[in-house]
């Protein structure tokens, strides 16, 4: 099983970006690259080579699902788990996100102390 080290986090809200970075680095010991837009993620993804991608759903210009589609055109992310982050999740929406190729969905607001565990669990299931 490959090891989970590098997480690409795409989120336009600077406060959330900061708290997720701190939480994932300090609690989980991951190395995190934060991007503020889908475009930035597209520019950075090849250089950073993430093991896991965390995508905010609602962003201006290019939203999470659009970013995922573009990412997929750019790199073979078939093996990289992708989780969407969103504030509102109906069961039908989860199904929708999954059909877009997301491995899982993480709900906002999240608890910074538990975010790493949640991501680890998604990772384990994706590779289990």
């Amino acid at each position, binding site marked *: 099983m490959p090891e989970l080290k590098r997480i690409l986090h795409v989120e336009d*809200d600077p406060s959330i970006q900061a708290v997720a970075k701190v939480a994932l680095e300090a609690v989980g010991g991951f190395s995190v690259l934060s991007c503020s837009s889908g475009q930035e993620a597209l520019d950075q993804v090849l250089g950073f080579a993430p093991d896991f991608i965390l995508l905010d759903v*609602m962003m201006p210009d290019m939203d999470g699902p659009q970013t995922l589609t573009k990412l997929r055109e750019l790199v073979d992310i078939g093996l990289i788990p992708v989780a969407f*982050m*969103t*504030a*509102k999740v109906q069961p039908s929406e989860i199904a929708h996100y999954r059909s877009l190729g997301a491995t899982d969905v993480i709900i906002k*607001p999240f608890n910074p102390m538990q975010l790493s565990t949640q991501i680890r669990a*998604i990772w384990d299931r994706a590779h289990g």
Partner: protein
Amino acid sequence: MDKRQQQLQQLQAHLQQLGEQFAQRLQQELPELAGKARQLQQADDVESQQHLLSSLRDQLHKLAGSAGTFGFNGLGQQARELEQQAEQWLDSLQQKQQRLQDFIHGLERLAEQPQLIEPEAAPAGTSARLASLASTTCARVIYILEDESSIGENIRLTLNTFGYKAEHFSRIEALDAAIAKHLPDALIIDVNLPEENQTGLDYAAALNQRLEEPLPLLVLTTQNDFTTQLQAVRAGAQGFFTKPLDITKLENRLERCFAQQNGEPYRVMIVDDDRDLASRYSLVLRGADMLVETLQNPEQILAAMASFNPEVLLLDISMPNYGGPELAQIIRFNDDWLRVPIIYLSAETAITRQMGALVKAGDDFITKPISDNSLITTVFARAQRARLLSNALSRDSLTGLLKHADIKEQVALEQERGLRSGKSASVVMLDIDHFKQVNDNYGHVVGDSVIRALANLLRQRLRRIDSLGRYGGEEFLAVLPDCSAAQAERIVDEIRQQFSAICFSAGDREFNVTLSAGIAGAPGLAASELMEQADRALYQAKHSGRNQVRLAE
């Protein structure tokens, strides 16, 4: 202090600092929101209203997602509620626009039909007219695809009698064109269409895949075999009916689809001594629009359940002084809680211990850690089944309304709630006039359809918070919380007029039916006295010539 602890402390400090920064940001952002709200008040064209509303919705959505992460739970929750309200306002603006568009199209079409100005033969009697109804209530739109015209028309007319706005299409092409113009609230589709090059199911499956939110789908067929049923399930059907049709059953199922669609949020109770985890689960489930209450002290479980009335219980399997299964058994001692599904939360993966716990009063297991969406899916599925089951047991099979005992209980509950809140409830007792004559003249099947029509009308006209029950044969009981007797009188009198305007048909005969009602509302009275007063008022209405609404004196 060891290194790990030191790290944790640093992290906490860091998080706190970020929280303070976020609070500063809020000091800017909240006045901004208020500013937009003021703009909204001044905006006078629909476009700028829509623009402002969607920007407010997006901003509130962000806030709902972020505030809780920094510990501002109250703010996050309020933002979420306001976000939903913004969404609803947007929806209703869009609907208004759509209706205006439809109206304009209608006028345009009128101008395009020269044959309308030519003299025509006397109009044939339609078997169901609901003009007055359709104009005052938002009737649900049902599209029917049925190549046998007589069957299709029959369904259409019957559904219209029940207050729906049904349209019948014989060909896929015509249905497709109508759907492109206006999306219906549900579809009824015949599987066997010999004239077409695809079956009705193929069409429905493709359509539902195309749509973001699949439409409720009922399937009609002459083949009652496993393969067809399986295909129906795969196409997303929620009902399967074999010809010859029982249209009342069809309508029943339709009503159930809608009840499920916009039912109240599911109520979930979480009992876990780990406060962090309980609030985490609670957040996740609330995000999926469920109502959640958490409880740390298991000794209060019975009182908490009585006041919250949960539909699903999540129970930690091992708490300091109690085992989850012990608690579950205590709950099951009480007959009222036999139906509530209990899901154990457990870090236990050993199957034998899980089995042992299940045998003791539980229904399911969630193994920690669980992903957010598995949690939602598990709880949602349990809650949905539990509610369906509970409805099947407590609801009258003809009307789908509460049964005698359950509606009486509801009156008592509302009266009690009124005492606490200081807002009084009104009780309405309703009875169909000369119902025996309807049964004698036209038969019981027609009589049943009259009862169902009234039940539907009541359901459509009363609010979601009102409770409605079938009290006896043709007698209904409703309780309207936070509603004065005078307000109730106005609403019920409108319902009386609308009901008398419904034109029922039996064969080629048409007839109208009226109703009488009695209303009582007095804070502080016992529920039984209130019902008695309403009953007396109903009696007076009957004796003063029927077809009227009376207030209790």
